[in-house]
């Protein structure tokens, strides 16, 4: 018997299974939306991943060509709905820079605080959802519970919880609510106690570490070549923080650190987002007590017409670098608008880094990539 087993073990190297194709999605829960991955497998080993996108393509770029500049921001928060405010701000900054107007200091402060609150809310949702992807359901409830506080702050000031539409070209739509500063400060105090709990719950967990450490490594050179930005790119050591390199709004006034990773594996991407939450809290703390008095918006013309030419604006959303490229022919509608969305470039590295990993590791990689599908499809 022992001989037979030994003979069998020595021949297992030659046993081969056929490659087969599996559709992962568009309804797979770990794709966070409607993304279809056509995965070529041999047993459990991933040989090739081909992302198929476009299930919720809504033609935002085409629609903007028939809209006026104040109308365009309202479409953009449907792209990356977790970074709605940053998307709105990107278009508004692009229009303001093209018109060469300077918004009041108060607007810059409010926008930056909203940016960082939005980033926190987005990272909270990412944290809880990717915990769920990796089998830790408890995290999901904790994350959503704490995200609620931020959404309440948003709701009180601008009436919306998800698609904010708070920023308009020239300023913000209305002034902040009288309770805003008090509530944000209360949230910071509370969240500083909660954030170490997040680490206790998942980061130190041995099962979680085994599933993420060393999995799906993306080198710095590849991150640059594939255009991977945001926390995903920074985990590989690619210094790509737009807030640092091309500061906008009130970012030149605040001190913060651009966190950079070295390993580029799933655990590093995880850790980097956790560190970024601390930095966001730190930025809000510097601004919240110093919001200057003044107007909350400039008086803009009824019909905004951009001068002829091309304008590009880069903004750091929760997922990476968002670019807005406006080609204007001097009319009230843009001639062409292109949104360079961070998710689009990030997603398409997946074939490169998921090769030769198990299919369960593909889920871990996707979880730490923080994909939002409307951001990719637009």
């Amino acid at each position, binding site marked *: 018997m022992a001989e037979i087993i030994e003979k069998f073990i020595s021949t297992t190297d030659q046993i081969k299974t056929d490659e087969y194709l599996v559709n992962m999605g568009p309804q797979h829960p770990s794709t966070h939306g409607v993304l279809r991955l056509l995965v070529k497998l041999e047993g459990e080993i991933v040989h090739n991943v081909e992302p198929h996108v*476009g299930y919720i393509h809504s033609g935002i770029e085409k629609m903007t060509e028939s809209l006026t500049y104040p109308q365009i921001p309202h479409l953009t928060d449907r792209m990356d709905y977790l970074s709605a405010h940053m998307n709105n701000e990107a278009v508004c900054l692009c229009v303001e820079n093209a018109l060469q107007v300077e918004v009041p200091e108060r607007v810059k402060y409010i926008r930056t605080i909203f940016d960082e609150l939005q980033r926190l809310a987005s990272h909270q949702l990412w944290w809880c959802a990717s915990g769920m992807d990796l089998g830790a359901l408890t995290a999901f409830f904790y994350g959503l519970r704490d995200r609620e506080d931020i959404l309440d702050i948003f709701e009180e000031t601008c009436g919306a919880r998800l698609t904010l539409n708070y920023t308009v070209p020239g300023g913000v739509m209305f002034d902040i609510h009288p309770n805003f500063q008090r509530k944000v400060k209360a949230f910071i105090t509370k969240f500083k106690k909660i954030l170490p709990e997040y680490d206790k719950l998942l980061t130190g967990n041995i099962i979680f570490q085994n599933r993420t450490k060393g999995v799906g490594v993306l080198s710095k050179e*590849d991150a640059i*070549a594939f255009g991977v930005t945001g926390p995903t790119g920074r985990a590989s050591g690619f210094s790509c923080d737009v807030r640092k390199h091309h500061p906008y709004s009130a970012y030149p006034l605040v001190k913060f650190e651009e966190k950079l990773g070295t390993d580029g594996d799933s655990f590093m991407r995880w850790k980097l987002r956790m560190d970024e939450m601390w930095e966001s809290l730190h930025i809000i703390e510097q601004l919240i007590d110093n919001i200057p008095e003044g107007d909350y918006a400039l008086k803009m013309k009824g019909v905004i017409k951009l001068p002829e030419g091309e304008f590009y604006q880069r903004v750091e959303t929760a997922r990476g670098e968002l*670019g807005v*490229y406006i080609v204007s022919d001097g009319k009230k509608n843009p001639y062409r608008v292109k949104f360079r969305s961070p998710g*689009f*470039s990030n997603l398409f590295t997946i074939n490169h880094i998921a090769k030769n990993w198990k299919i369960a590791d593909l889920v871990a990689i996707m979880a730490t990539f923080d994909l939002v599908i409307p951001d990719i499809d637009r």
Partner: protein
Amino acid sequence: MTNEQLIDHLSKAYPDAVAKQGNQYPEINVPKELLHAFMLNLKSDPNLAFDYLFCQSGVDYPTFIQVVYHLESTKHKHYLVVKANTEDRVTTVLDTVSDIWPTAEFHEDEIFDLLGIKFNNHPHLRRLFLDDTWGFPLRKDFHDDIHVVER
């Protein structure tokens, strides 16, 4: 390199290309026959070292169709916008840059899908968002009788 040095350097090396300072970034208009060799040089020349293609898009102008490449060098921190025009609206073809910057592979798929520009030597040119029954929606002569109601 500063923007002026960059424009100076490139217009000396490529007399056929038209370089000028744009609103934000230096811009250069490259003949489409030169495009691939020009891009390869931008990446491999250690003084230029444009390693990060942060945006690639297409624009349909009245007389030509243009592909716009926004480039950054993470080493030298300088920027360049490269433009390549093609007049042919029926067989619109340009050379791919996906062998230079892998991120271009899927940006080119998107441009093919929405603007109908084919890319030579592209590994798998396919429609990314729409199915084959659609035309090319970002072209200005695109007309959709079913989904668009003209008032």
